[in-house]
């Protein structure tokens, strides 16, 4: 909380994902593509295949323009963005791994120069010399991945660094090797998919058949290596993290799960149009294959980023920049005393520093729809216990009671304060269901382990009333029912429709 907070209209996640997705797609291609170019050049030169060499030269122009400009600059952009969005975490990473980054920078410089010289050297260099540059490029591009992979995986699995604080413990952390193998395989796969795009535009003759087949093999080989490495990676993540993710993060977990069907579809498409009927591979189909590959890769990245929650560096720093070791200080003194840059609005400052790195009012991961129609007392009761109520993927609220109320007041000022019936135009049981969703369902979703409707079925009107009157006493963090009499009545009416087991 030593930094100002960039109060972006869009969510942090959206901006971060926008830059990061673009960068990882291109940077992995930059590695695999370099390997692809030099291996293909070598085999083409062996048989003096000038047609293939011309194809590769064309591909290398696309490669250089994509990777040198977009790849390099989105990488720098990503660094800019993490510094803007989570400067505290960036500071931790830079202080611990600056030599890693500096080493990576030396690789980056060699890689960039090698790529430029390789591109301009097609016609002016001896083949062996030209390929030497190609190999240097690929080797240093992969070494860049090697280093960045250490820092990236550290954030999810810092391992014994948490005990010793040693550079090498953090770098060669538990997911380092599986992630390196997985990313190397993805780089090979993407090289094949990007090359397939270029090959699909060739005239439908024997050359196209040959090129499509060869490039499809790269895609298939990369995918075949990536799938078991993904499993290895999953196994290397501590069970506590994966178990929490399975319970608390259904969407990215489901995306990862379903994306394996995408991997299957990708394999089928590559075999069918890459190997069996390569002549029929048109640009549009190659693009579909490419999108499928990128979506599969993207689902992995989403999963990887998501399962770190509530941390940005697991076990060390929460997503909102609060260091775990400072927990007692925050509990004792609250947030405000730690916030170095103040706007003059305590509620806004507290909301930004405690919640805003993941939530917006009305954009990405919005709070307004969740709290519209409620009141300050209800929000004020939810805020300090949100990490308990929402099953552990939220950082704990470490502020004081008055700070929780200040956040509640700030949020309330941005909410639609009309009754739920007016906001949603609902009446009767339907309104009761909405009241349940807003006031109960956030923490007790039906069908989840926290579903309490089983015990609610079949009670009397009076028992339901007592239940709502005493809600605040039922467990840690449970807020009092602060809705008006109309909401209370329709909620009870809704309860009366419930059957044992939570069914309606």
């Amino acid at each position, binding site marked *: 909380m030593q*930094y*100002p*907070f*960039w*109060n*972006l209209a869009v969510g942090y996640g959206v901006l971060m994902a926008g*830059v990061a997705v673009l960068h990882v797609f291109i940077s992995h291609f930059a590695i695999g593509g370099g390997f692809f170019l030099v291996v293909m050049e070598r085999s083409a030169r062996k048989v003096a295949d000038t047609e293939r060499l011309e194809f590769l030269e064309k591909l290398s122009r696309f490669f250089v*323009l994509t990777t040198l*400009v977009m790849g*390099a*600059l*989105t990488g*720098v*952009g990503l660094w*800019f963005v993490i*510094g*803007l969005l989570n*400067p505290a975490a*960036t*500071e931790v990473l*830079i*202080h*611990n791994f*600056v*030599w890693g980054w*500096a*080493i990576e*920078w*030396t*690789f*980056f*410089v*060699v890689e*960039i*120069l*090698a790529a430029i*010289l390789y591109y*301009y*050297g097609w016609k*002016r*260099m*001896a*083949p062996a*010399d030209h390929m030497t*540059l190609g190999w*240097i490029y690929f080797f240093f591009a992969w070494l860049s991945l090697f280093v960045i992979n250490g820092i990236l995986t550290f954030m999810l699995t810092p391992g014994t*660094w*948490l*005990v*010793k*604080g040693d*550079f090498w413990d953090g770098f060669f952390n538990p997911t380092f090797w599986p992630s390196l193998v997985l990313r190397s395989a993805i780089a090979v796969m993407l090289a094949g998919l990007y090359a397939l795009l270029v090959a699909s535009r060739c005239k439908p003759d024997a050359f196209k058949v040959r090129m499509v087949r060869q490039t499809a093999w790269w895609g298939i080989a990369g995918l075949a290596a990536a799938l078991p490495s993904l499993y290895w990676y999953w196994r290397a993540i501590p069970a506590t993290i994966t178990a929490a993710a399975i319970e608390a993060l259904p969407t990215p977990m489901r995306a990862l799960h379903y994306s394996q069907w995408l991997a299957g579809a990708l394999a089928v498409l590559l075999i069918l149009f890459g190997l069996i009927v390569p002549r029929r591979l048109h640009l549009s189909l190659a693009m579909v294959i490419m999108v499928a590959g990128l979506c599969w890769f993207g689902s992995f990245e989403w999963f990887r980023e998501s399962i770190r929650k509530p941390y940005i560096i697991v076990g*060390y720093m929460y997503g909102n920049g609060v260091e*775990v*070791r400072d927990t007692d200080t925050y509990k004792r003194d609250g947030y405000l005393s730690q916030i170095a*840059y*103040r*706007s003059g609005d305590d509620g*806004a400052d507290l909301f*930004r520093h405690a919640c805003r790195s993941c939530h917006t009012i009305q954009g990405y991961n919005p709070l307004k729809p969740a709290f519209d129609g409620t009141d300050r007392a209800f929000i004020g009761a939810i805020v300090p216990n949100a990490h308990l109520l929402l099953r552990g993927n939220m950082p704990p609220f470490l502020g004081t009671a008055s700070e929780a109320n200040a956040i509640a007041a700030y949020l309330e000022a941005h909410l639609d304060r009309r009754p739920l019936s007016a906001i949603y135009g609902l009446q009767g049981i339907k309104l009761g269901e909405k009241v349940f969703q807003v006031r109960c369902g956030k923490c007790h979703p039906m069908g989840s382990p926290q579903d309490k409707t089983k015990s609610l079925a079949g009670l009397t009107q009076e028992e339901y009333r007592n239940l709502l009157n005493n809600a605040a006493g039922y467990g840690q963090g449970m807020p009092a029912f602060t809705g008006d009499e109309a909401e209370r009545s329709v909620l009870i009416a809704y309860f009366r429709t419930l059957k044992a087991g939570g069914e309606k």
Partner: protein
Amino acid sequence: MTLPDSSFLPAPLWVITVLHVLTLSLHFAAMNFVLGGTLIVLTGRFDRRWGNPTIRRFIALLPGAMAATVTLGVAPLLFLQLAYPRQMYSASIVSGWFWFLVIPAVIGAYYLLYAASFSGKEGVSSKARFLWPALFALLYVSLVYSSVFSMAEHPDLIQRLYAQNQTGFQWNPDAGNYLLRWLHMILGAVAVGAYFVGLLGKDDPETFPVAKRLFGYGMAGAAAAGFGYLVSLNGILAGLMRTPAIWGLIVGILLSLGSLHFFFARRFLPSGLALFVSLVLMVISRHQLRVLRLQGHFDPASWRIAPQWFPFLLFLICFASAAMLIVYMVRLFFSSRPDSL
């Protein structure tokens, strides 16, 4: 469990400072090639601008120089963020959108430079259509850098601006603190750009006189802007005069004049060396100024030092190996012939 404390420097401060100064000087050299060179190509009084082979060769080199500018710009920013994270991040957050837009601006400029280098084979002015917007993008980047880095030296100003607006749209309003500095940089870039244009066109009777003239004008302009900036420092100037950096500044001015002299005498190696050393001395003075400006707010010497010697040694080995490999690759590129195998 006691968690590690990450508030430390992984090497003594002087090591970080030396690396920052060295890499920033290299970045400036490349950046001046691109920015100053583009400015000269577009505005220099050449008789046949787009048909001139030297100009065409120079434009062909711009994308490579841009790549060097970007890659060499990473390291100094890294070392700066290591020693001054609170100042750097805070200033960039307050100007968040302007800072973020540096990336699309650089991407745009980079592609435009490629487009310029690939286009206009018949000597038409299509290159200008790409180079002008590229130049504006680069000027935008340089202005944002000047604004943000100057703001980073004024923590009180950051506090004040943040209290007014938190959406990242705060531009440094204290123009007196950075406009002259920015102008000094731009005019210095013209001088360095002119050196490179002149070096490339040393045998070209059309290009060399223009380069000579612009080297002189650029140097004179940079000196005037730099002098104006020093005067505007008021009390800080007195502090600067009490540090060894003032001697560096004086030597730098003398070396700049020497560089001009050698350039006019067509002795390019001593001219280039003098120019680069003067650039290094300017970077050192700039660094010293930052330290002085932050006095009372932050002292980088207050960092706890917890050296990571082995990773540092590995970095030095990689740095030296990369330098050797770069020389090897460039030599290979220029010595290799397609028929040599």
